Protein backbone atom coordinates (compact mmCIF):
# COMPACT_ATOMS: atom_id res chain seq x y z
CA UNK A 1 0.00 0.00 0.00
CA UNK A 2 2.84 2.34 0.89
CA UNK A 3 4.51 1.56 -2.47
CA UNK A 4 1.33 2.42 -4.41
CA UNK A 5 1.01 5.73 -2.54
CA UNK A 6 4.61 6.58 -3.40
CA UNK A 7 4.05 5.75 -7.07
CA UNK A 8 0.90 7.89 -7.20
CA UNK A 9 2.75 10.74 -5.48
CA UNK A 10 5.63 10.51 -7.98
CA UNK A 11 3.20 10.48 -10.93
CA UNK A 12 1.28 13.47 -9.63
CA UNK A 13 4.49 15.48 -9.00
CA UNK A 14 5.74 14.62 -12.49
CA UNK A 15 2.37 15.71 -13.92
CA UNK A 16 2.50 19.03 -12.07
CA UNK A 17 6.06 19.72 -13.27
CA UNK A 18 5.10 18.84 -16.85
CA UNK A 19 2.04 21.11 -16.61
CA UNK A 20 4.13 24.04 -15.37
CA UNK A 21 6.69 23.52 -18.16
CA UNK A 22 3.98 23.33 -20.84
CA UNK A 23 2.35 26.54 -19.57
CA UNK A 24 5.70 28.37 -19.47
CA UNK A 25 6.61 27.40 -23.02
CA UNK A 26 3.19 28.23 -24.51
CA UNK A 27 4.06 31.92 -24.78
CA UNK A 28 6.94 31.27 -27.20
CA UNK A 29 6.06 32.05 -30.81
CA UNK A 30 7.99 31.36 -34.00
CA UNK A 31 9.98 34.31 -35.38
CA UNK A 32 7.64 36.60 -37.29
CA UNK A 33 10.28 38.92 -38.74
CA UNK A 34 12.04 38.46 -42.05
CA UNK A 35 11.29 36.27 -45.01
CA UNK A 36 12.51 34.84 -48.28
CA UNK A 37 12.99 36.98 -51.35
CA UNK A 38 13.62 35.62 -54.84
CA UNK A 39 17.05 36.55 -56.17
CA UNK A 40 18.86 36.21 -59.47
CA UNK A 41 22.60 35.47 -59.40
CA UNK A 42 24.56 38.59 -60.38
CA UNK A 43 27.86 38.22 -62.18
Amino acid at each position, binding site marked *: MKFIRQVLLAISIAGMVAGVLRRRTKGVVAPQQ*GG*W*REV*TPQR
Partner: protein
Amino acid sequence: MTSAPTSSIGIVGHGIVGSRTALTLQTLGHSVKVASLRTATELFDCSVVVLAHGAPHAALASTFIAQGISVVSTGDNLEDVMSMLDSQERAEARNAVIVAGASCSPGMSGLLVSHMRRAFESIDEVHTAVHGTGGPMCARQHHDSLAGLSVGWHDGEWLQRPAGSGRELCWFPDPVGARDCYRFASPEPVLMQRVEPGLQRITARVSATRRDRLTARLPMLRRPHAEGLEGALRVEVRGVRNGRRHVEIVGIANKVGSISGVVAAHTALAVATGVVPAGVHNLGQAVLPNADILDGAVNSGITLHQFVGTDQ
Protein backbone atom coordinates in the same frame (compact mmCIF):
# COMPACT_ATOMS: atom_id res chain seq x y z
CA MET B 1 26.25 27.88 -70.73
CA THR B 2 28.70 27.13 -73.52
CA SER B 3 27.63 24.35 -75.86
CA ALA B 4 29.39 21.03 -75.45
CA PRO B 5 31.35 19.59 -78.36
CA THR B 6 29.88 16.76 -80.43
CA SER B 7 30.90 14.04 -77.94
CA SER B 8 27.92 12.60 -76.15
CA ILE B 9 27.20 12.50 -72.46
CA GLY B 10 26.28 9.21 -70.82
CA ILE B 11 24.15 8.63 -67.76
CA VAL B 12 24.25 5.56 -65.52
CA GLY B 13 20.89 5.10 -63.81
CA HIS B 14 17.26 5.32 -64.88
CA GLY B 15 15.96 6.73 -61.60
CA ILE B 16 14.70 10.17 -60.65
CA VAL B 17 18.09 11.92 -60.77
CA GLY B 18 19.15 10.14 -63.96
CA SER B 19 15.92 10.99 -65.76
CA ARG B 20 16.04 14.65 -64.61
CA THR B 21 19.64 14.89 -65.80
CA ALA B 22 18.69 13.44 -69.18
CA LEU B 23 15.67 15.73 -69.46
CA THR B 24 17.78 18.82 -68.73
CA LEU B 25 20.42 17.85 -71.29
CA GLN B 26 17.86 16.97 -73.96
CA THR B 27 16.01 20.24 -73.37
CA LEU B 28 19.29 22.03 -74.09
CA GLY B 29 19.67 20.05 -77.33
CA HIS B 30 22.40 17.61 -76.30
CA SER B 31 22.48 13.93 -77.13
CA VAL B 32 22.36 11.60 -74.16
CA LYS B 33 23.01 7.87 -73.78
CA VAL B 34 21.40 6.24 -70.76
CA ALA B 35 22.45 2.85 -69.39
CA SER B 36 21.74 0.84 -66.30
CA LEU B 37 24.44 -0.15 -63.83
CA ARG B 38 24.70 -3.60 -65.49
CA THR B 39 25.18 -2.16 -68.97
CA ALA B 40 27.42 0.76 -67.97
CA THR B 41 30.18 -0.44 -70.32
CA GLU B 42 27.96 0.65 -73.22
CA LEU B 43 28.98 4.20 -72.29
CA PHE B 44 32.69 3.67 -73.02
CA ASP B 45 32.31 5.78 -76.20
CA CYS B 46 31.13 8.85 -74.24
CA SER B 47 33.45 11.63 -73.15
CA VAL B 48 31.60 12.35 -69.89
CA VAL B 49 29.45 10.01 -67.80
CA VAL B 50 27.06 11.06 -65.06
CA LEU B 51 26.73 8.46 -62.30
CA ALA B 52 23.13 8.78 -61.12
CA HIS B 53 22.56 5.36 -59.56
CA GLY B 54 22.70 4.44 -55.89
CA ALA B 55 26.00 4.25 -53.99
CA PRO B 56 28.74 3.11 -54.33
CA HIS B 57 30.11 5.13 -57.25
CA ALA B 58 33.87 4.94 -56.59
CA ALA B 59 34.52 1.58 -58.26
CA LEU B 60 32.61 2.45 -61.44
CA ALA B 61 34.20 5.90 -61.50
CA SER B 62 37.64 4.21 -61.45
CA THR B 63 36.58 2.01 -64.37
CA PHE B 64 35.57 5.02 -66.47
CA ILE B 65 38.67 6.96 -65.46
CA ALA B 66 40.82 4.03 -66.60
CA GLN B 67 39.19 4.46 -70.03
CA GLY B 68 39.97 8.19 -69.99
CA ILE B 69 36.29 9.08 -69.54
CA SER B 70 35.42 11.93 -67.19
CA VAL B 71 32.90 11.27 -64.44
CA VAL B 72 30.29 13.42 -62.70
CA SER B 73 29.07 11.64 -59.58
CA THR B 74 25.78 12.56 -57.91
CA GLY B 75 26.55 10.36 -54.91
CA ASP B 76 26.38 11.73 -51.38
CA ASN B 77 27.63 8.72 -49.44
CA LEU B 78 30.47 9.84 -47.15
CA GLU B 79 32.76 6.79 -47.59
CA ASP B 80 32.08 6.62 -51.32
CA VAL B 81 32.96 10.28 -51.85
CA MET B 82 36.11 9.88 -49.73
CA SER B 83 37.13 6.97 -51.98
CA MET B 84 36.65 9.11 -55.07
CA LEU B 85 38.73 11.93 -53.58
CA ASP B 86 41.62 9.44 -53.38
CA SER B 87 41.62 9.08 -57.19
CA GLN B 88 43.45 12.34 -57.92
CA GLU B 89 46.64 10.74 -59.30
CA ARG B 90 44.77 8.19 -61.43
CA ALA B 91 42.54 10.89 -62.91
CA GLU B 92 45.49 13.12 -63.73
CA ALA B 93 47.38 10.18 -65.28
CA ARG B 94 44.44 9.45 -67.59
CA ASN B 95 43.75 13.15 -68.25
CA ALA B 96 40.22 12.72 -66.93
CA VAL B 97 38.03 14.65 -64.52
CA ILE B 98 36.02 13.40 -61.57
CA VAL B 99 33.49 15.80 -60.07
CA ALA B 100 32.40 14.27 -56.77
CA GLY B 101 29.13 15.13 -55.07
CA ALA B 102 27.46 16.99 -57.95
CA SER B 103 23.90 16.89 -56.68
CA CYS B 104 21.93 18.98 -54.19
CA SER B 105 23.87 18.77 -50.91
CA PRO B 106 26.72 18.48 -51.72
CA GLY B 107 26.71 20.08 -55.14
CA MET B 108 24.34 23.00 -55.34
CA SER B 109 25.51 24.01 -51.85
CA GLY B 110 29.07 24.44 -53.15
CA LEU B 111 27.81 26.55 -56.06
CA LEU B 112 25.87 28.76 -53.66
CA VAL B 113 28.86 29.23 -51.33
CA SER B 114 31.00 30.14 -54.34
CA HIS B 115 28.35 32.68 -55.36
CA MET B 116 27.77 34.12 -51.87
CA ARG B 117 31.50 34.34 -51.19
CA ARG B 118 31.66 37.45 -53.35
CA ALA B 119 29.47 39.38 -50.90
CA PHE B 120 32.14 39.08 -48.17
CA GLU B 121 35.68 40.22 -47.56
CA SER B 122 36.30 36.87 -45.88
CA ILE B 123 34.13 33.96 -44.78
CA ASP B 124 34.74 31.64 -41.85
CA GLU B 125 31.54 29.61 -41.34
CA VAL B 126 29.27 27.63 -43.66
CA HIS B 127 26.20 25.80 -42.37
CA THR B 128 24.04 23.81 -44.76
CA ALA B 129 20.73 22.05 -44.27
CA VAL B 130 18.72 19.96 -46.69
CA HIS B 131 15.12 18.76 -46.59
CA GLY B 132 13.65 15.92 -48.60
CA THR B 133 14.96 13.15 -50.80
CA GLY B 134 15.11 12.36 -54.50
CA GLY B 135 14.30 8.80 -55.56
CA PRO B 136 14.18 5.57 -53.52
CA MET B 137 17.98 5.15 -53.42
CA CYS B 138 18.29 8.69 -52.10
CA ALA B 139 15.69 7.89 -49.44
CA ARG B 140 17.70 4.81 -48.40
CA GLN B 141 20.83 6.96 -48.21
CA HIS B 142 18.92 9.47 -46.04
CA HIS B 143 17.80 6.62 -43.77
CA ASP B 144 21.32 5.19 -43.42
CA SER B 145 22.96 8.60 -42.97
CA LEU B 146 21.04 9.17 -39.73
CA ALA B 147 22.57 6.04 -38.17
CA GLY B 148 26.29 6.55 -38.71
CA LEU B 149 28.80 9.17 -37.68
CA SER B 150 28.68 12.74 -38.88
CA VAL B 151 31.77 14.81 -39.52
CA GLY B 152 32.06 18.52 -38.89
CA TRP B 153 34.83 21.09 -39.15
CA HIS B 154 35.21 23.09 -35.93
CA ASP B 155 38.02 25.58 -35.34
CA GLY B 156 40.43 23.73 -37.59
CA GLU B 157 39.65 20.22 -36.36
CA TRP B 158 37.49 17.42 -37.67
CA LEU B 159 34.84 16.45 -35.13
CA GLN B 160 32.89 13.22 -35.23
CA ARG B 161 29.44 13.22 -33.66
CA PRO B 162 26.64 10.66 -33.74
CA ALA B 163 24.35 11.18 -36.71
CA GLY B 164 20.85 12.15 -35.62
CA SER B 165 22.13 14.43 -32.83
CA GLY B 166 22.45 18.23 -32.73
CA ARG B 167 18.85 19.25 -33.37
CA GLU B 168 18.46 22.70 -34.90
CA LEU B 169 15.34 24.39 -36.23
CA CYS B 170 16.17 25.48 -39.78
CA TRP B 171 13.98 27.72 -41.90
CA PHE B 172 13.66 26.81 -45.56
CA PRO B 173 11.95 28.83 -48.30
CA ASP B 174 8.18 28.40 -48.60
CA PRO B 175 6.30 26.11 -48.80
CA VAL B 176 8.69 23.96 -46.73
CA GLY B 177 9.14 26.39 -43.82
CA ALA B 178 10.72 25.39 -40.50
CA ARG B 179 12.06 21.86 -40.00
CA ASP B 180 14.02 20.18 -37.24
CA CYS B 181 17.39 19.26 -38.70
CA TYR B 182 20.10 16.95 -37.37
CA ARG B 183 23.70 16.03 -38.06
CA PHE B 184 24.09 13.22 -40.59
CA ALA B 185 26.80 11.21 -42.30
CA SER B 186 27.38 13.57 -45.20
CA PRO B 187 30.50 14.40 -47.24
CA GLU B 188 29.38 18.03 -47.32
CA PRO B 189 31.84 19.37 -44.67
CA VAL B 190 34.78 17.55 -46.32
CA LEU B 191 33.94 18.94 -49.76
CA MET B 192 33.17 22.41 -48.40
CA GLN B 193 36.54 22.53 -46.68
CA ARG B 194 38.13 21.88 -50.10
CA VAL B 195 36.11 24.80 -51.50
CA GLU B 196 37.24 27.24 -48.79
CA PRO B 197 40.23 25.88 -46.84
CA GLY B 198 40.16 28.98 -44.61
CA LEU B 199 36.78 28.12 -43.09
CA GLN B 200 36.71 27.68 -39.32
CA ARG B 201 33.34 25.97 -38.91
CA ILE B 202 31.36 23.79 -41.31
CA THR B 203 28.22 21.88 -40.42
CA ALA B 204 25.73 19.91 -42.50
CA ARG B 205 22.29 18.94 -41.32
CA VAL B 206 19.30 17.12 -42.74
CA SER B 207 15.65 17.37 -41.77
CA ALA B 208 14.24 14.31 -40.06
CA THR B 209 11.19 13.29 -38.08
CA ARG B 210 11.13 11.43 -34.76
CA ARG B 211 10.34 8.23 -36.67
CA ASP B 212 13.32 8.74 -38.98
CA ARG B 213 15.67 9.03 -36.00
CA LEU B 214 14.06 6.21 -34.02
CA THR B 215 14.23 3.73 -36.90
CA ALA B 216 17.54 4.87 -38.40
CA ARG B 217 19.45 1.86 -37.09
CA LEU B 218 16.78 -0.59 -38.26
CA PRO B 219 16.03 -1.72 -41.81
CA MET B 220 13.56 0.60 -43.55
CA LEU B 221 10.10 -0.31 -42.25
CA ARG B 222 8.45 0.21 -45.62
CA ARG B 223 9.54 0.81 -49.19
CA PRO B 224 10.46 4.43 -49.87
CA HIS B 225 8.27 6.62 -52.05
CA ALA B 226 9.02 6.83 -55.76
CA GLU B 227 10.04 10.45 -55.19
CA GLY B 228 10.09 12.85 -52.27
CA LEU B 229 7.14 15.24 -52.49
CA GLU B 230 8.99 18.39 -51.55
CA GLY B 231 12.58 19.38 -50.99
CA ALA B 232 14.67 22.35 -50.02
CA LEU B 233 18.23 23.45 -49.47
CA ARG B 234 19.53 26.19 -47.22
CA VAL B 235 23.08 27.55 -47.12
CA GLU B 236 24.15 29.97 -44.40
CA VAL B 237 27.49 31.75 -44.81
CA ARG B 238 29.05 33.88 -42.07
CA GLY B 239 32.04 36.14 -42.40
CA VAL B 240 33.20 39.74 -42.53
CA ARG B 241 31.83 42.48 -44.78
CA ASN B 242 32.85 46.11 -44.49
CA GLY B 243 34.80 45.22 -41.36
CA ARG B 244 31.73 43.83 -39.53
CA ARG B 245 30.29 40.36 -38.96
CA HIS B 246 27.79 39.51 -41.66
CA VAL B 247 25.47 36.60 -42.44
CA GLU B 248 23.96 35.65 -45.79
CA ILE B 249 21.39 32.88 -46.18
CA VAL B 250 20.30 31.55 -49.55
CA GLY B 251 17.79 28.76 -50.06
CA ILE B 252 16.01 26.76 -52.72
CA ALA B 253 12.61 25.10 -52.50
CA ASN B 254 12.38 22.43 -55.18
CA LYS B 255 12.37 18.66 -55.40
CA VAL B 256 15.78 17.30 -54.43
CA GLY B 257 15.78 15.05 -57.50
CA SER B 258 15.20 18.04 -59.78
CA ILE B 259 17.95 20.12 -58.14
CA SER B 260 20.37 17.18 -58.37
CA GLY B 261 19.52 16.42 -61.99
CA VAL B 262 19.91 20.01 -63.12
CA VAL B 263 23.22 20.44 -61.26
CA ALA B 264 24.59 17.15 -62.62
CA ALA B 265 23.55 18.05 -66.19
CA HIS B 266 25.19 21.48 -66.19
CA THR B 267 28.29 20.10 -64.47
CA ALA B 268 28.58 17.43 -67.17
CA LEU B 269 28.26 20.12 -69.85
CA ALA B 270 31.01 22.17 -68.19
CA VAL B 271 33.29 19.11 -68.04
CA ALA B 272 32.48 18.24 -71.68
CA THR B 273 33.65 21.66 -72.85
CA GLY B 274 37.15 20.79 -71.61
CA VAL B 275 37.56 23.84 -69.38
CA VAL B 276 38.01 21.74 -66.23
CA PRO B 277 41.58 20.50 -65.56
CA ALA B 278 42.18 16.79 -64.98
CA GLY B 279 41.83 15.59 -61.40
CA VAL B 280 39.22 15.17 -58.69
CA HIS B 281 37.13 18.24 -57.97
CA ASN B 282 33.91 19.26 -56.30
CA LEU B 283 31.50 22.08 -57.07
CA GLY B 284 32.47 25.42 -55.60
CA GLN B 285 36.21 24.96 -56.17
CA ALA B 286 37.84 27.75 -58.17
CA VAL B 287 38.95 25.42 -61.00
CA LEU B 288 35.31 24.83 -61.98
CA PRO B 289 33.14 27.36 -63.86
CA ASN B 290 30.78 27.65 -60.89
CA ALA B 291 29.07 30.83 -62.08
CA ASP B 292 28.28 29.23 -65.47
CA ILE B 293 26.92 26.10 -63.82
CA LEU B 294 24.78 28.12 -61.38
CA ASP B 295 23.49 30.31 -64.23
CA GLY B 296 22.63 27.18 -66.18
CA ALA B 297 20.78 25.72 -63.20
CA VAL B 298 18.76 28.94 -62.74
CA ASN B 299 17.95 29.01 -66.46
CA SER B 300 16.77 25.39 -66.15
CA GLY B 301 14.18 26.38 -63.57
CA ILE B 302 15.92 26.44 -60.19
CA THR B 303 14.85 29.54 -58.24
CA LEU B 304 17.12 31.00 -55.58
CA HIS B 305 15.76 32.74 -52.49
CA GLN B 306 17.63 34.97 -50.10
CA PHE B 307 16.57 35.25 -46.47
CA VAL B 308 16.00 38.87 -45.56
CA GLY B 309 15.71 39.23 -41.79
CA THR B 310 15.44 42.09 -39.34
CA ASP B 311 17.47 42.93 -36.26
CA GLN B 312 14.59 42.08 -33.88
